[in-house]
């Protein structure tokens, strides 16, 4: 395990967590802030993962630190569970569907964009 790389992932991940926290403060019944953070992180992760072949160290910092720190699965699960507990099944399903659809679409777009930039 490369300790220096791990510390860099931590520094970038900490900064990305602060940005995610600021997104999470967006008001409303629907947790749109975390949806935006997860989608943006997936796009960044897609671009960075396609660039891993060029600079593996920078790629790992961007994928694990920036994209990993900006996105969250636990908060998504907590917010969906809370919507279910609040008898808001439509919003819960919408949260699941949007987090599934937008993150995968964003990661695919990012990966394709990254590969196109490499050509």
């Amino acid at each position: 395990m490369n300790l220096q790389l791990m510390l860099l992932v931590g520094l970038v991940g900490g900064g990305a967590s602060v940005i995610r926290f600021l997104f999470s403060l967006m008001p409303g019944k629907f947790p749109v802030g975390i949806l935006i953070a997860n989608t943006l992180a997936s796009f960044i992760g897609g671009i960075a993962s396609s660039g891993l072949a060029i600079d593996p160290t920078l790629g790992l910092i961007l994928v694990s630190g920036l994209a990993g720190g900006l996105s969250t699965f636990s908060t998504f699960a907590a917010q969906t569970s809370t919507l279910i507990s609040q008898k808001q099944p439509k919003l819960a399903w919408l949260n699941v569907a949007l987090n599934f659809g937008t993150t995968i679409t964003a990661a695919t777009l990012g990966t394709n964009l990254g590969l196109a930039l490499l050509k």
Partner: protein
Amino acid sequence: MPLTFVQLALVFTGGALGSMLRFAVPFDQLESLWLVNIVGTIFLAWVNSSAWFSSASRRAFWATGFAGGFTTMSGIAVFISTAPESPGFAAIQAVAMFAVGIAVYHLAAKRFGSVTR
């Protein structure tokens, strides 16, 4: 509650710790995703249910920072988008992780809530 520098610093520190711990998980991509996301979700359920974590500073560090930084949604999305040879298998894994994660949070929050409150 107004944002404070201390609150942001706690989110940063917790997020850095969670990100480093996730980075150090020594399994392959899929096993790591399952481990960090399910363990991190159970941890968040405990944090959200426990009276000890009810202060804003502890929540900023452990819930928003640590649990948020330890778990990852982008990892799932990148796993699916970079698995062109088996997109169906990757999508099934993601759907299963979503279902298990939400169910585990729901059950764990009830369990921990009944113990600590």
